[in-house]
Structure formats: structure tokens, C-alpha cells
């Protein structure tokens, strides 16, 4: 009956009920990533994430360059949030080399990283809209994102890859009249942000597809070591800007957003509410910032780190982002490990998607605030 197979070729035994689906690796919204999903009818039986399509060896590359040369390539894993991914690197190198940062630079860093957090969150929200087939929700955040990109371009000269934060402060001072322009745009954006409520967060389309799906309990969120909005959506009050304040966050007025539901809706809502807090931080920082002064402590030529190690972390758009740097009296770091929120939240994916409807997969997946390029590094 059956024709004999050529040597070396095997046929996989196909189950009667279970079908295997490859979701990806070509991805419409972000970097490439594959989910190997087994479905029984419309229900997901198991999910095996397969990242690594955009692994670029950032950590290995960092071992070949000195502490200043490392700045521009280390922001590549997440170019929409480039200030926040450089922030812990700068803090770690400053601690390693014993550099003091001027007060004004600390405030400008906070402003830059909060503006960048909004850029990231708006991009994330735009893709969320696309994932759920809501094209207005793609257009609005993508348009409003330009406001912040313009501000960051005025600050640093580049639209997305700013390389603005450097060990010792920031690359250059703010342009003239930046404060007024920033306050005006943030005021406008806060009004605009309220309109998102009506079109997206009170939309029956979003609510029916996200409320009660992919529930992650508080215990599991802690046990799985999740971070960022995923953790705070499950009722854990943990934000490094409050818990381990770096630079001037302890002087600024803002609150941590926590929800107790732990479902996809809460995970989509928290980054949105945090944008209001970001606006508060920016306005408060502009008010409290010293109006003049140095913005950068110059490094020695080719600084060396000593026999030391340091672990520094900040709260990025996707959760805690840490750098572990080992140095050995050389101008280059001996080892750089980047611990990113996306990689830490990856473990939730098989856990949350099991038993879920296939139609809910996009909202659960994107609600985890997962950025493949950052996770692969």
C-alpha cells in the first residue's frame, strides 16, 4: 500500500484530535518569535515558546568594547525604549568607576526616560489595537507618539536611538525653551489620553476578549518571577521607581498603579494608567530641576573598572531591567549580563495559554508586554 520512504526521512505520527500550529516566526507587530501551539479544536492544549530568531549576542559584543563604545549598541535590543535600557548600564558603570552625576543631569535623565516610556507604551498600545483588529487604536497612539519623539529628537538629535544617557550624566544639555514646549505637549497629551478610555478601554470588543482571560494569580506571578505590568496586574505592589529609587525618583510625586484581577484586561490597562503617572513625573521633574549647571561628569580616557562586580536595575517599560557587570582591571568589561523583563515574562506564556481559546491568544500574548528583540538580546 504505502510507498517506502527514502532513508533518513520519518513521518510524524499525527494524532486524531491534536493539531500542531506554528504561530510565527514572522511576526506582524514586533520582532520575530515563534510559538509552537498544540490545539484541540479551538482550545490550546500546550504552548512551547521558541525565541531566538533575533539573538544578536549583545552580551558577547560588550566584552570587546570599552565602557563608552558600548553605549550605542546596547540600546539596540529595544530601540523604542532606548533611554530605559541604557539607564541601568549607566548606573552600573558609574558605580564601578566611582563617578558622581550632576544634579541637573539626574533630572534630565528622569525626564528622558519617562518620555521614552510613553513612546514605548504608545507603540505597544498601537500594536495591541492591530492584534485585536481595532485599527483606530493603531492610528491614535501611533500619531500621539510623534509628540514625544519630537521632544526626544529636540533633546538628543535622534528620533529613536538616542544614546542620550551616558555614564556620568547625559550627552548634551536641553535645547532653549525645551521646558515650556515639553509642558505644553504633556498637557495636551493628558487630555488626549482620556479619549482612549472611550474608544478602547470601554469598548465591548476589548472587554469581551480580555476580561477574565489568561488569569495569573498573585502567588503564581511571584513564583514565576514575573515583572513589570504583568506583576502589578496580579496585585503585587512592586515598582523599582518606588521600591529602590534611583537618581531623583524619591523626590518626585507619583504613584504605583496596581490592579488585583490578574487577567488580560488588567495587563492592558496598567501601562495605559502608568502613562498618566509618567506625565506627572515629567511635570514634577521640570518644576524641581535646577535651572542651570553641569550635565555631564567627564570620564577619564579609557577608564578601567577594577576587580569588581555590580548589579544595577531600573524599571523599564517592560519591567525590571538589570545589568550585571564583572570587570577585571581592563578598559573592557569582563562579562555583561542583561536581565530583561521580556525574557523573565516569557515563562508565563506556556502557563497562561494552556486551556485558553485560540482566539484569545493574541491578547494574552501581547498583554505580557513581551518584546522579542529585547528577550533575545
Amino acid at each position, binding site marked *: 500500500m504505502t510507498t517506502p520512504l527514502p532513508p533518513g526521512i520519518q513521518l510524524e505520527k499525527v494524532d486524531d484530535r491534536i493539531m500542531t500550529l506554528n504561530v510565527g516566526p514572522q511576526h506582524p507587530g514586533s520582532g520575530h518569535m515563534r510559538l509552537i501551539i498544540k490545539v484541540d479544536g479551538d482550545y490550546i492544549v500546550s504552548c512551547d515558546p521558541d*525565541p*531566538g530568531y533575533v*539573538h544578536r*549576542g549583545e*552580551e*558577547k*559584543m560588550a566584552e*570587546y568594547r570599552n565602557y563608552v563604545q558600548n553605549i550605542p549598541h546596547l540600546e539596540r535590543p529595544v530601540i523604542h525604549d532606548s533611554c530605559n535600557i541604557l539607564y541601568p548600564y549607566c548606573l552600573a558603570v558609574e*558605580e564601578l*568607576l*566611582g563617578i558622581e552625576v550632576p544634579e541637573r543631569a539626574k533630572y534630565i535623565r528622569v525626564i528622558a526616560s519617562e518620555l521614552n516610556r510613553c513612546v514605548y507604551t504608545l507603540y505597544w498600545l498601537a500594536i495591541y489595537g492591530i492584534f485585536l483588529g481595532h485599527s483606530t487604536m493603531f492610528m491614535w497612539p501611533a500619531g500621539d507618539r510623534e509628540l514625544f519623539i519630537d521632544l526626544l529628537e529636540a533633546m538628543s538629535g535622534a528620533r529613536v536611538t538616542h544614546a542620550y544617557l551616558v555614564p556620568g550624566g547625559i550627552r548634551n544639555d536641553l535645547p532653549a525653551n525645551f521646558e515650556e514646549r515639553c509642558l505644553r505637549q504633556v498637557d495636551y497629551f493628558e487630555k488626549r489620553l482620556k479619549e482612549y478610555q472611550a474608544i478602547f478601554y470601554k469598548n465591548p470588543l476589548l472587554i469581551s476578549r480580555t476580561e477574565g482571560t489568561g488569569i495569573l494569580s498573585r502567588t503564581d506571578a*511571584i*513564583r*514565576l*518571577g514575573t515583572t513589570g505590568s504583568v*506583576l502589578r496586574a496580579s496585585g*503585587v505592589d*512592586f515598582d523599582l521607581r518606588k*521600591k*529602590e529609587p534611583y537618581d531623583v525618583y524619591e523626590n518626585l510625586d507619583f504613584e504605583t498603579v496596581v490592579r488585583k484581577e490578574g487577567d488580560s484586561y488588567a495587563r492592558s490597562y496598567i501601562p495605559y494608567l502608568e502613562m498618566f503617572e509618567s506625565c506627572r513625573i515629567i511635570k514634577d521633574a521640570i518644576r524641581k530641576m535646577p535651572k542651570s549647571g*553641569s550635565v555631564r*561628569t*567627564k570620564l*577619564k580616557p579609557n*577608564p*578601567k*573598572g*577594577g*576587580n*569588581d*562586580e*555590580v*548589579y544595577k*536595575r531600573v524599571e523599564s517599560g517592560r519591567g*525590571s531591567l*538589570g545589568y*550585571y557587570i*564583572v570587570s577585571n582591571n581592563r578598559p573592557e568589561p*569582563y*562579562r555583561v*549580563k542583561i*536581565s530583561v523583563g521580556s*525574557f*523573565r515574562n*516569557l*515563562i508565563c506564556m506556556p502557563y497562561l495559554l494552556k486551556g485558553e481559546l485560540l482566539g484569545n491568544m493574541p491578547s494574552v500574548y501581547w498583554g505580557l508586554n513581551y518584546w522579542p528583540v529585547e528577550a*533575545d538580546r
Partner: protein
Amino acid sequence: MGSETEKDEQPSETAAISEDAESVSKDETKKSHEEQGIDFSPDSSVHPKPIPEFEKSISDKIASKFGSKINVDYVRSSRIRISTKKEDILDVAFFIRDELGYDHAESVSGVDYPDSKEIEVVYHLGSYTDDKLATHVLTLATRVPREEIPNPGKDSTRMTSLREVFYSVEFHERECFEMFGVYFEGHPDNRRLLLPEDWADIPPFRKDFKIKGR
């Protein structure tokens, strides 16, 4: 190695020569550097710092339990480092979770030391449940033997997985296995994660794997 150290010394020698020749202008250049805000003072060296009270209470607790099996270092404020042998790491990890209150792993990093023929595996542990520990990251480190010609999964580069203690290490340990060749015994899923399926070279984050052209 020899050529590298020579390269390092060269600039300092030339600097010494120029110092002799232009000893008059030395003060002026120093002044101008001060004006520009360039700091030429020696590197901040690691000197013993007094241990703050809270850090001391944690390190005392763990030292009284395990004694000479472990080595507790105070690296800097709210960063304590515990080094242990790979045979004891499971007991120490259970103690850290149950008695000290650390509940999740933030990262698992390998650090390759070819000179001492060892690979160090470093766990960074944090706590969400205990508010007092929120700023603290505990570093738990152990060293595994390193083979000159690696054969990942089959050689002596192996240690006990901490997955049954900290569930969150699952993907981090998989990454450490493929990047350093450290096999984690008891890990349910020691497959490749980030590297391509057809990767046939040595684990790429080891020091003897060189980037092409470097």
C-alpha cells in the same frame, strides 16, 4: 597575553618621558584639565567598607547555619554575595527561600574563567513578598569545572538545577546551558533556547569562542 600587557604599558612610558621633557607645562595642563572637569585621580579601588546592620543580620543568619561551607561577601549596599560549592547549593538555596524570604530569581548568568578552568554560575535572587528585602538582590554563586574541549551535557561541566527551589529559573538555566555548556541536573527541559538548531560550534559565551575578525 604578553603583547596585550606591553600595549598597556606603552602609553604610560611615553607619558613618563613627556613628563620629564615638559615638566614646566605639566601644572598648566593639569589646571586646564581641572577646568574642563576631567578627573585624573586613580581608579576607585575596592576597600573594605563597614557592613550596614540589615545586611549584617542576613549574612550572620546564613553564616551561622552553614559555617565554613559558604563564603559571604559584602559587595556594596544591599548587594550581598554568597559563594558556595556546587554540592551544597541546593541546601543553601532552600534556606535562602524558606528562612530569608527571597522568592524569585532575576537572572542566571555564567561567567567563564578559562585560567582557573572554572565557570561561575551566578543567581541573582530578589523578593516580592518581603518589603524589607525589596531593595536587596542576593547573589548566589557557585563554580563548576570547565573542560578544555566542551561536550555540553556529557562532560563534567554540570550542577544541580535550582528549578525546584525557584521555579523562575527555568528559561534562564536553559540559556546558561546553551551559552556556557553548563548542564543542569534535574532540569526537565535542557533544550536549546536562543541558538539555532544547527549550531555546531562550542558554547558561544565562553572566552575561547572569538567573534570573527576580532
